[in-house]
């Protein structure tokens, strides 16, 4: 019989199930290096937002409620380079708490800039959650197989945020598109607006896109199963990756930061640490210093 106490105890055990600290170490390296790639390679146009006349700037609620400055070329440049510097420090495993917090705050500011000119993206929430929780774990070395609850909680938060992105987006479809969203022409619109040459044949196959819409909805609603672990979770992970690859091939959209967070489901602690990387890593943490 499930009493409230036993349910809470099981939930707590699930939320804090220890995970190897090495997974957090690699997650940090990948995600913080991704921040640098995002700034200069993937979305360099955000830096151009500073050159846009401020008449086009329409800050979001957080940008109005908190004292974030109006983006000018100087503001944007300062944020960009401070963010890159702190991300590189954090990626190396050093100053993970302070550099990690700086990265979170500045990346949040960077996204507020990007989203205040008419379009808000919806692929960043899991990544922001990751940036928020990674500094809470303390020092972690690549290859460290010691399981800790701090690492377990952080990884679990990222996993839940990834699942929430898929699961809640199904309800957004019901809210904005109606329960009959899957019978409409949403994917066809995407292909017509920005389809690649690979997607061209789909312009004559509305039934295929319609079936894909049903499949997508079914996948999104089932994603909480990713949190159960084991073979089911792995199957979902593969399906998610396949979905993102196909989407990129068809309409050249890749939800990069979200896809990076799928790494939280992988046993990164098993990645072999080459000798040169081991030499670059910070000194082993003593129990008192984490």
């Amino acid at each position: 019989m499930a009493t409230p106490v036993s349910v809470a105890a099981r939930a707590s055990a699930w939320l804090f199930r220890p995970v190897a600290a090495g997974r957090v170490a690699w997650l940090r390296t990948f995600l913080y290096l991704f921040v640098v790639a995002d700034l200069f390679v993937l979305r360099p146009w955000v830096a151009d937002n500073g050159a846009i006349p401020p008449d086009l700037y329409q800050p979001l609620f957080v940008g109005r409620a908190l004292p974030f400055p109006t983006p000018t070329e100087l503001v944007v440049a300062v944020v960009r380079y401070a963010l890159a510097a702190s991300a590189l420090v954090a990626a190396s495993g050093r100053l993970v708490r302070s550099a990690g917090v700086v990265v979170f705050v500045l990346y949040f500011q960077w996204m507020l800039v990007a989203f205040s000119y008419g379009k808000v993206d919806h692929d960043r929430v899991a990544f922001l959650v990751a940036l928020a929780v990674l500094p809470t774990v303390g020092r972690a070395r690549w290859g460290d197989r010691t399981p800790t609850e701090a690492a377990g909680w952080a990884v679990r938060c990222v996993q839940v945020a990834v699942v929430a992105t898929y699961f809640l987006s199904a309800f957004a479809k019901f809210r904005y598109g109606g329960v009959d969203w899957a019978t409409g022409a949403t994917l066809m619109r995407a292909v017509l607006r920005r389809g690649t040459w690979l997607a061209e044949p789909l312009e004559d196959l509305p039934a295929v896109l319609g079936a894909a819409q049903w499949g997508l909805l079914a996948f999104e609603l089932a994603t909480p199963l990713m949190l159960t672990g084991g073979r089911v979770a792995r199957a979902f992970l593969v399906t998610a990756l396949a979905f993102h690859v196909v989407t990129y091939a068809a309409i050249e959209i890749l939800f990069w930061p979200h896809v990076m967070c799928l790494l939280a489901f992988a046993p990164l602690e098993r990645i072999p640490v080459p000798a040169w990387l081991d030499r670059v890593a910070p000194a082993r943490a003593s129990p008192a210093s984490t």
Partner: protein
Amino acid sequence: MLTSTGRRVRAAAAAAVLLLLVWGTFWGEDDHWPFGPFRMYSVRNELDGEVRSLELEGVDAAGRRFDVRTELVGLRRADIEGQLGKLERPPDAVAALLARAYGRLHPDEPPLVELRLYERIFQMRDGRAVSEDEETITTWRRP
């Protein structure tokens, strides 16, 4: 391992964020980012409806007429569509501001003397495009 306070704080924080995300899905809007709804591709398009896509075409001082990728004016197509749609800014003002942005971002290029905002319009029937058309929204000319 974590202390019991450490666990309680973390559990509460996780629950709070999750609750805010659920709130955002049902009652929030884009303005509440990051706690807004995950509304990517959520709008249902009619099988017999229209699909519109904003494009820019420019003429520079050297007389060259060219398609202006929106990245050249520092924005994405969805940003400009948002300015005209959701934010309801007047098209003439937006075109003038985009022309100015082009000048700031490409000071070594010949300036724009004309910038046309137009839409490609696909007419759909049974979920398939049957015709393609074009409609100018506004044309900015350098005074």
